[in-house]
């Protein structure tokens, strides 16, 4: 598939990188002329995916997290968050609202939020090898008639 723009960032699974990942994503998506609400949805979903990599994938070590941002045709933003951590045994179970292995500090809502705030969510995971979460959202944008075609 043709993509018009792409950015790949790799960072260690440190919790201060949650805010960094949101900012980078917002800066990338800003080129696609999103509404404030769309931008907030995307930032929220990225925060969930990156937090999962930090909290669950590497529970007691620091490992690499890769964030890939792509702008696809039809003003679709694709966000991929990949880790090489512990993986998920049962993805269908993990996607259930309120399912968590994180105890009282977590609510088990992250994957549910990603699913409802984005248009598409796919998860590939292998126990012991890692997890890749891919999300897409079409940015309908502000529909500003003065908005010039982007170059």
């Amino acid at each position, binding site marked *: 598939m043709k993509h018009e723009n792409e950015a790949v960032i790799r960072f260690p699974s440190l*919790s*201060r990188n*949650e*805010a960094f990942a*949101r900012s980078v994503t917002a800066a990338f998506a800003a080129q696609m002329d999103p509404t404030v*609400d769309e931008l*907030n*949805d995307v*930032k*929220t979903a990225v*925060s*969930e995916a990156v*937090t999962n990599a*930090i*909290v669950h994938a590497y529970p007691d070590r620091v490992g690499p997290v890769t964030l890939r941002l792509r702008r696809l045709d039809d003003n679709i933003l694709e966000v991929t968050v990949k880790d090489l951590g512990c993986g998920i045994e049962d993805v269908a179970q993990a996607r259930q609202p309120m399912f968590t292995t994180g105890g*009282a*500090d*977590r*609510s088990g*809502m*992250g994957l*549910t*939020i990603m699913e*409802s*705030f984005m248009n598409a969510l796919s998860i590939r995971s292998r126990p012991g090898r890692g997890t890749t979460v891919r999300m897409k959202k079409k940015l309908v944008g502000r529909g500003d008639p003065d908005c010039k075609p982007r170059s």
Partner: protein
Amino acid sequence: MTFTSFLQDKRLTILLSGEIDHHSARETMEAVSEKIRVYLPRYCELDFGAVTFMDSSGIALVIHTLRAMNELGGKLRLTSVPPQPRKVLLASGIQNLVALSQERSPA
């Protein structure tokens, strides 16, 4: 994430501000628990007016606070909730357990 609180007539108001994510939530959770433990309020209000971003870590914060208030037989309210945190809170169904309003509570 910064944190201000005041107590008046057994009413504890906690003003949350900044970004609530996994990085900031734990400290906030502990600070909120500590205030409740010390002041034993009858009402607790979490004011989200200055919160600029919140993810599911904020849901856990609210549930945690709700538990602490339930143990005291007290009430919790969430006030001045901006659109982004509101959308996250509504996704969790928490509005069935705790009052949530866009407005400031009456003084």
